[in-house]
């Protein structure tokens, strides 16, 4: 119900929203929780396990009960805490974990079975028969238990991630945080002040306290205005610091204001990585409840939350209010609710010595033994002065004391320290380097003391930053002492809840101890206490106190479980913002991309590059038709292929040739200028890393090419070799992959095309196989290499990339005049397979030079990377797989890459495997499939039969081992 008063809501601005399909009204400044409360919606959720009706319990991100789903369909957001959801026009919220609806939930039958469903129930019950687990038990449990659901549909919710830097990060904008930020800002430090709430002020917005003679919330507004006018301050409201990481890095989740998030292009959340030289933790404290029988009824809530709803949002969950506490702070709730117009029917303090001046029924030394009212609190049973009495009330506000928010200080392994005086854990100093806790987060609870400690933390940070201390004056504020007498559980019959979100009771924790799960970490896992979205924010300390009681240990000896990031749930979409769809990885496009697309070629990814698969002509409706035609075209006339994606490294310097001799197995130093050599590089372990060509452009100037996939790896390898192994060598290298657009022109008519293109006499005799040199295309300087990956007379022509698109167009036009055209990756693959040329399908990191039949390329007259390791017996023995070619000889004509090879007649099991097929293709030139593979002692088996067995599809083919080069074995076509 809505109370009179102003609070921090704007009654002039009404907002309409729905909950479970029903329309309600709230005001600007409301949260979903406060608006539901104002509309007398008492049951907002069903509990996790027993499906008990639950109401709003707290007023911040620690809320265990009021979890709702926002929106429907793709993009729906489950487990949103109604207490932190800002109300906006048209907001749609839905309850969770109830069927068919919130008021009548069939699975509430679990509640009747509660005696059987205690801690460890699953572990004991669903053991037998074993096969029932996956098919029956698990689906049943998953159906019965759980919270909200994400939509399986793909959605386009935009998240964002961003980086921020500062001298001082102030975490929390309550009195301590505001003072810390203000003082640091005066010294000129770059300050970020982050707070979860929509407005700064922290508890000042929830209390009736005055600061410097004005309402605390008004003072906070004033401070916020002054801070936002300070250039070196960045205020980040709606931003939760979620984790503390190495080197002063903090994760933060920002919820974008609903009106902003609704704009075109706006994100819904932003995940920040904030790097701060120093940090002040002013995150405040969280109130804890007291456990008693049936303490989970809607209407039972935290005392400070009850007065926050009254003071800030002018709402209360009922007309009559009882307060149950073990500390002085709880009395404030009675006073504030009375002032707000509610009838306070009882103030119950467990401390026998407690006193109260309030005009309310006061019960010192009293305890709440139980409650009544299934879907909303009706009455409580009070035990005081040896008597039990029933008191009718709608609301029971409970305070078991305050737990400082130590979470972030524990994210790097620090353990909090128990403090007897406030009966709570305090942060361990310096547990996170550069982070200092202050205010309520450090157990300093009065407004004055919090401001003072915030100021001191700021000064400490300024000293560490080497900045001057500014003059400042602390505002006048209350300085009441905090007194508490620890009280955890009211003993009695019935279930007393500790963890509302996971339905864990006092009995469950004691049961765990009885069954010898006495460590707090074991208890947590056995009972599930402290799991789920709230991570036990309300329950951890109470649960460990109960455990300590059960085991006879002290609370400090029992200790806490490990606090881990994130402090609040963070959508995976926020952490990986921008990484879906085309944002997943950069796309690299060749200069001929547009023309290639225009010709209808489907593109395939090669690393990050996009390359044409084949170029379909009209009438071709199958990739094989295009591929076969392109292969024949290259063999009979000519073809053009964009090969710009191959890695290119420019190597220069007096020691360039020594360097290349060291990274290649073969010698490059003996190569003459204007020549190109094929080269092989090994890894340090002796296996083949990559292959490619090396061209000598001038005396001390080389151009190395790598495969497309290994370009980065080879560059990294070069850096390693130079920086770590041969730092003294005077050699310089840099990637020029992107500088040059390079096109292969291959086929018997390729020379004619080049002559037409260059308009100059290009004599075959001047350009022997494996030569290179400069040419001019019009007035553009280009490089020409006579190399071949197709086995035909072949060239590669390179121009600066800006001319790539234009050159491709000219090459196609000239090729078509000669009966040629473009060819894609499929044809390129078949051409190289016919010739037995290798790709990374063969050099997959497990093969040696000798396996590839390239043992002779391992120069005996020099040292090179991988040489020694390649000599290991295991890498040289004959039983290793050697590269071989394959052709089928039986009725089955199919070869399949990945299939294994067996001796004919041997059982096709893994122990009998003699090798495998690495790549296959249909050769239109040979009118059959061609394959490359590796076969034990394969070099000696040419001509022998083997059987291919492909276990996935069941294809078996009789094959003959042939030489890997199946077409033009002497290489005349490309050499002459």
């Amino acid at each position: 119900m809505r109370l009179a008063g102003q609070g921090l809501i704007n009654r002039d601005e009404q907002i309409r929203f729905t909950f479970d399909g029903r329309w309600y009204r709230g005001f600007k400044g409301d949260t979903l929780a406060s608006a539901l409360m104002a509309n007398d919606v008492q049951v907002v959720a069903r509990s996790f396990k027993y499906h008990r009706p639950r109401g709003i319990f707290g007023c911040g991100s620690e809320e265990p009960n009021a979890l709702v789903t926002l929106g429907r369909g793709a993009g729906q957001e489950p487990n949103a805490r109604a207490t932190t959801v800002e109300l906006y026009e048209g907001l749609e919220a839905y309850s969770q974990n109830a069927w068919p609806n919130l008021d009548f939930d069939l699975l509430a039958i679990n509640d009747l079975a509660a005696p059987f469903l205690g801690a460890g129930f699953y572990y004991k019950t669903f053991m037998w028969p074993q096969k029932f687990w996956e098919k029956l038990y698990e689906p049943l449990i998953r159906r019965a238990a759980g919270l909200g659901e994400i939509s399986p549909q793909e959605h386009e919710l935009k998240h964002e991630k961003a980086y921020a830097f500062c001298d001082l990060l102030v975490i929390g904008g309550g009195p301590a945080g505001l003072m810390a930020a203000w003082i640091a800002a005066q010294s000129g430090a770059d300050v970020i002040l982050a707070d979860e709430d929509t407005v700064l002020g922290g508890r000042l917005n929830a209390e009736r306290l005055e600061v410097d003679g004005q309402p605390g919330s008004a003072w906070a507004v004033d401070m916020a205005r002054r801070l936002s006018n300070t250039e070196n301050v960045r205020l980040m409201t709606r931003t939760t610091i979620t984790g503390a990481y190495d080197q002063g890095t903090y994760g933060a989740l920002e919820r974008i204001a609903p009106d902003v998030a609704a704009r075109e292009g706006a994100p819904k959340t932003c995940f920040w990585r904030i790097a701060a030289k120093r940090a002040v933790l002013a995150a405040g404290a969280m109130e804890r409840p007291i456990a008693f029988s049936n303490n989970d009824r809607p209407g039972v809530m935290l005392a400070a939350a009850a007065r926050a709803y009254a003071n800030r949002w002018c709402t209360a969950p009922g007309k009559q209010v009882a307060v149950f506490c073990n500390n002085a702070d709880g009395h404030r709730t009675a006073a504030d609710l009375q002032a707000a117009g509610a009838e306070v029917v009882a103030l119950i303090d467990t401390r026998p010595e407690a006193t109260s001046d309030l005009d309310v029924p006061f019960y010192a030394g009293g305890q709440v033994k139980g409650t009544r009212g299934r879907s909303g609190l009706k009455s409580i049973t009070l035990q005081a002065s040896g008597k039990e009495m029933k008191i009718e009330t709608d609301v029971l506000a409970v305070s078991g004391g305050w737990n400082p928010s130590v979470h972030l200080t524990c994210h790097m392994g620090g353990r909090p320290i128990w403090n007897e005086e406030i009966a709570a854990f305090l942060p361990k100093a310096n547990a996170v380097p550069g982070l200092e806790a202050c205010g309520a987060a450090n157990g300093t609870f009065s407004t004055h003391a919090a401001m003072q400690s915030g100021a001191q933390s700021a000064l400490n940070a300024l000293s560490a930053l080497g900045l001057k201390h500014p003059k400042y004056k602390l505002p006048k504020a209350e300085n009441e002492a905090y007194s508490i007498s620890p009280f955890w559980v009211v003993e009695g019959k019935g279930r007393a809840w500790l963890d509302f979100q996971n339905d864990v009771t006092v009995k469950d924790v004691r049961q765990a101890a009885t069954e010898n799960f006495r460590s707090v970490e074991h208890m947590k896992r056995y009972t599930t206490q402290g799991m789920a979205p709230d991570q036990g924010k309300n329950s951890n300390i109470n649960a460990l106190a109960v455990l300590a009681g059960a085991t006879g240990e002290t609370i400090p000896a029992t200790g806490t479980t490990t606090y881990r990031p994130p402090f609040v749930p963070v959508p995976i979409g926020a952490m990986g913002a921008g990484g879906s769809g085309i944002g997943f990885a950069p796309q690299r496009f060749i200069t001929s991309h547009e023309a290639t697309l225009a010709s209808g070629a489907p593109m395939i990814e090669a690393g990050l590059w996009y390359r044409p698969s084949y170029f379909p002509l009209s009438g071709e409706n199958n990739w094989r038709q295009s591929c076969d035609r392109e292969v024949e075209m290259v063999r009979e006339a000519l073809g053009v292929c964009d090969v710009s994606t191959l890695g290119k490294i420019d190597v220069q310097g007096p020691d360039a040739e020594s360097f290349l001799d060291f990274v290649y197995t073969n010698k490059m130093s003996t190569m003459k200028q204007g020549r190109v050599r094929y080269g092989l590089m090994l890894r340090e372990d002796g296996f083949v890393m990559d292959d490619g060509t090396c061209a000598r452009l001038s005396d001390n100037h080389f151009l190395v090419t790598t495969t497309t996939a290994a370009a980065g790896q080879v560059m990294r390898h070069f850096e390693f070799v130079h920086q770590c192994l041969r730092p003294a060598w005077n050699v310089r290298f840099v990637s020029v992959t992107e500088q040059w657009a390079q096109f292969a022109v291959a086929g018997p008519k390729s020379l004619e095309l080049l002559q037409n293109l260059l308009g100059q006499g290009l004599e075959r005799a001047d350009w022997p196989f494996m030569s290179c040199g400069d040419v001019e295309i019009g007035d553009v300087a280009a490089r020409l290499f006579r190399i071949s990956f197709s086995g035909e007379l072949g060239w590669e022509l390179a121009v600066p990339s800006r001319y790539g698109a234009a050159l491709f167009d000219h090459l196609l036009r000239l090729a078509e005049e000669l009966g040629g055209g473009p060819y894609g990756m499929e044809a390129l693959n078949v051409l190289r397979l016919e010739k037995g040329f290798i790709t990374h399908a063969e050099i997959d990191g497990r093969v040696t030079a000798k396996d590839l039949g390239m043992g002779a390329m391992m120069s005996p007259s020099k040292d090179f990377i991988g040489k020694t390791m390649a000599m290991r017996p295991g890498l040289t023995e004959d039983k290793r797989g050697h590269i071989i070619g394959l052709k089928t000889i039986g009725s089955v004509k199919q070869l399949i890459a990945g299939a294994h090879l067996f001796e004919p007649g041997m059982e096709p099991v893994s122990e009998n495997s003699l090798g495998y097929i690495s790549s296959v293709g249909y050769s239109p030139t040979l009118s059959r499939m061609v394959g490359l593979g590796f076969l034990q002692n394969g070099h000696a088996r040419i001509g022998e039969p083997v059987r291919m067995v492909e276990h996935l599809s069941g294809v078996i083919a009789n094959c003959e081992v042939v030489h890997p080069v199946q077409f033009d074995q002497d290489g005349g076509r490309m050499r002459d």
Partner: protein
Amino acid sequence: MIELIPKSPLHGHEPLDIGGVHFFEINAGAMTSLLPYKGKANALSKALQKCHDVSLPEPNRTTGKTGARVIWFGREHTLLMGPEPNTSLAKHAALVDQTDSWTVAELRGEKAEAVLSRLCPLDLRSAVFKRGHTGRTELSHMMASVTRIGVQSFQIMVFRSMVKTLTHDMQVAMESVAARK
């Protein structure tokens, strides 16, 4: 005679103008990797001064200005932007033409820093990353070179082949920042 028509990396991409932030291609002129040989950095710096009136920058710094700028580009690696390098520099350093390797663009506007902070992990605060400061860094998932060339403007370079990803990611970040105004 065949005439090859050049295309710049951002050819066909309209400049972006979103929320008062502008993103457009810069014609930086010739770009040359200068890789000084062992012990030749000083000599290279002097020769640069003589030929192009710029010196060799320290790591993460640039020298010169638009028209003739040298930016630090990595370990023992700087990039001369603007003039064709004088051939005499080759005595002191390996010179490698990179004119066509990189997309060069400028991001300009009051919120340029906010846009970049969505894409790049550098500390871009003007007191830290001043005019003339440069960094080899990550931009979205791309490796990039980011240089502050003005109070509210940054020079951004990524591989030529990645220009589409650059413009896409830049547009997303610009729209996101614009929406927050």
